[in-house]
């Protein structure tokens, strides 16, 4: 029984044991009938959960108004951010909710095909989706034709134009899209691409309606959202929270260690927030004053015995390696930022100049790539320069930092792959 104003909604089940089709129908049974799906979607105020928070109904309406018979819905479960587990957790709990939502979106825009894209490096999620699709096929569910595609995992592979380009040409390379709004196309067919969690919310709205959806959340950020909390925490958690809860509440629910030094919000392309602002509400409107966003629902807590400079350097080095290397400012600029940060961390002779160079280079690199990858790194570095200003100065003058004393890293960064190991297709 899905009560209004109650959590959990999306995670109504056991993470790790996905609900079968029968269990799903039982759990999310309702007698409420939704009249017009697009209007309900619009009334719900649902925004995308992939990071950009674009109004879902507006995107669906734009796609619906495109001419042409064959449209495609793409469900983006790539989860490019390494410190995010919400999408795979959702697929491991309620895959049928996601497929419901995708079917609803398909019916809104008039699409006959739905492609679910999961990272091939995540065999659990692939298995969950495949099982769910098989169950639906066996039950003979009407609706669009589902297809599962597994793309190689890269940070930028989850970017919407990169994913669609992979579906077209087998290479996860972000594309240059000067026209806004720009419609993604697979061959000549218009594509509606939405994050997995967004689709799940659409599935809920399709069953319970917009009014039910709005019982949780603030006036602007409606509904619930999934958050991955890692870092200074005993066990990383994926939680379902509501916009408007303070960061402190979220961290308490996650059982994170109290009083983190700072929080990394939004992922590797997000920004740092000083630990003094933990009473800020966790939603986009409140976080903008500190230059942060909810992003893809990612919180990494930096413990008191960690060092923000070192963490930033590790992240930027990995992000530089994940560049698609299509655009000069990103391909050359991000490694330059990484080198400057390494200089600062090591406290070499030109560390002070490195800090100035960082400021200058951030200004040069920002906004000059085809996608937002370099912008994200610039945002991270700028926020680090702001929040960890004292630590930067300490490193430059050679003082050993807390992390070097404790030997602890809080932001999990994947292994740096050699260029020949980076697979884009």
């Amino acid at each position: 029984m899905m009560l209004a104003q109650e959590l959990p909604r999306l995670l109504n089940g056991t993470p790790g044991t996905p609900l079968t089709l029968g269990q799903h129908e039982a759990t999310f049974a309702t007698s409420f009938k939704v009249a017009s799906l697009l209007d309900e979607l619009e009334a719900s105020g649902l925004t995308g959960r992939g990071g950009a928070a674009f109004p879902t109904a507006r995107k669906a309406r734009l796609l619906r108004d495109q001419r042409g018979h064959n449209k495609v819905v793409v469900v983006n479960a790539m989860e490019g951010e390494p410190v995010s587990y919400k999408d795979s957790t959702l697929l491991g709990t309620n895959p049928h909710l996601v497929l419901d939502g995708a079917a609803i979106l398909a019916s809104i825009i008039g699409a006959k095909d739905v492609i679910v894209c999961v990272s091939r490096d995540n065999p659990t999620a692939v298995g969950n989706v495949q099982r769910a699709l098989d169950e639906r096929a066996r039950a003979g569910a009407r609706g669009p034709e589902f297809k599962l595609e597994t793309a190689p995992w890269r940070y930028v592979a989850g970017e919407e134009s990169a994913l669609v380009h992979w579906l077209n040409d087998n290479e996860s390379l972000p594309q240059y899209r000067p026209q806004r709004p720009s419609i993604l196309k697979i061959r000549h067919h218009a594509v509606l691409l939405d994050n997995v969690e967004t689709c799940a919310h659409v599935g809920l709205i399709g069953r319970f309606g917009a009014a039910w959806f709005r019982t949780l959340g603030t006036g602007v950020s409606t509904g619930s959202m999934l958050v991955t909390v890692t870092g200074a925490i005993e066990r990383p958690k994926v939680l379902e929270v509501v916009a408007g809860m303070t960061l402190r509440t979220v961290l308490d629910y996650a059982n994170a260690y109290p009083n983190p030094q700072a929080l990394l919000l939004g992922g590797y392309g997000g920004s740092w927030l000083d630990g003094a602002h933990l009473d800020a509400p966790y939603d986009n409107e409140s976080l903008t004053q500190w230059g942060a966003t909810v992003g893809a629902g990612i919180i990494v807590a930096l413990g008191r015995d960690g060092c923000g400079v070192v963490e930033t350097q590790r992240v930027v080095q990995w992000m530089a390696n994940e560049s698609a290397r299509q655009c000069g400012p990103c391909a050359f600029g991000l490694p330059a930022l990484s080198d400057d940060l390494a200089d600062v961390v090591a406290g070499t002779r030109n560390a002070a100049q490195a800090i100035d160079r960082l400021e200058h280079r951030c200004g040069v690199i920002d906004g000059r790539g085809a996608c937002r990858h370099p912008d994200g790194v610039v945002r991270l570095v700028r926020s680090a320069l702001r929040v960890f200003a004292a630590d930067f100065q300490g490193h430059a003058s050679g003082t050993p930092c807390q992390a070097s004393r404790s030997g602890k890293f809080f932001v999990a960064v994947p292994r740096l792959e050699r260029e020949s190991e980076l697979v884009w297709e």
Partner: protein
Amino acid sequence: MISLTTPYLWYTTRATGFVALILFTLVVTLGTLVANRVGGTVVGRFEVNELHRSVSLVAVIFLVFHITTTVIDSYVPTGWISILVPMTSAYRRVGVAVGAVAFDLILAVWISSLLKVRVKNETWRFIHWFSWLAFASAILHAYLTGTDAKSGAGLAVVAACATCVAAAALWRYVKRPTRAAGRTALSPLAASKGPGPGAPRPVSSKASSSFSRGETGVVTPPNTRAKPESFPRSPSPRSKKRR
């Protein structure tokens, strides 16, 4: 069929042939200068590019003269078809065939360049690489068909042109600019380029945290990002377009 022959047509053919060869040598050399980003201080890079474009126009005009005078001249029974289709000439079949190949390639390169605004960049670049083959065919054609090219000054000129372009090709390869990666190169023969001085460096000892338990002091979930062993390492044929 007009039976038209005068020694002057024959002289014009041979002369314009040589001039066209010399001009194309210049064009290819200028092309390598553009590609290797020569200029910027005394001579502007755009000037080298403009010179390359202008000289190619002149070269093509001389080439057209060369071809027309050959075909009109009934002294050499080549026929109109043999301009474009190899091995259809009655006179020096192989030599003219090689010339036809050269002309076909030059035509492709030239027309794609005229329509450069309309053609996709990767297509244009793919076709443009064939200009090397076009030049090689032109040299071969000069040697095989050229009445003068088999000895003396004629041979010297052909040899000089061939040497010049061979040197340019070598220099082109050795001094090629370090791009971010071969991602935008579309040569049929381009090899995968390793990271250049400005490109991201591979594994460093500074940041060697992996998604595993214990190393970082922070407990992390099992590695869901592990690459399956069946991952193909060598690029699929499709990816040749970005190597």
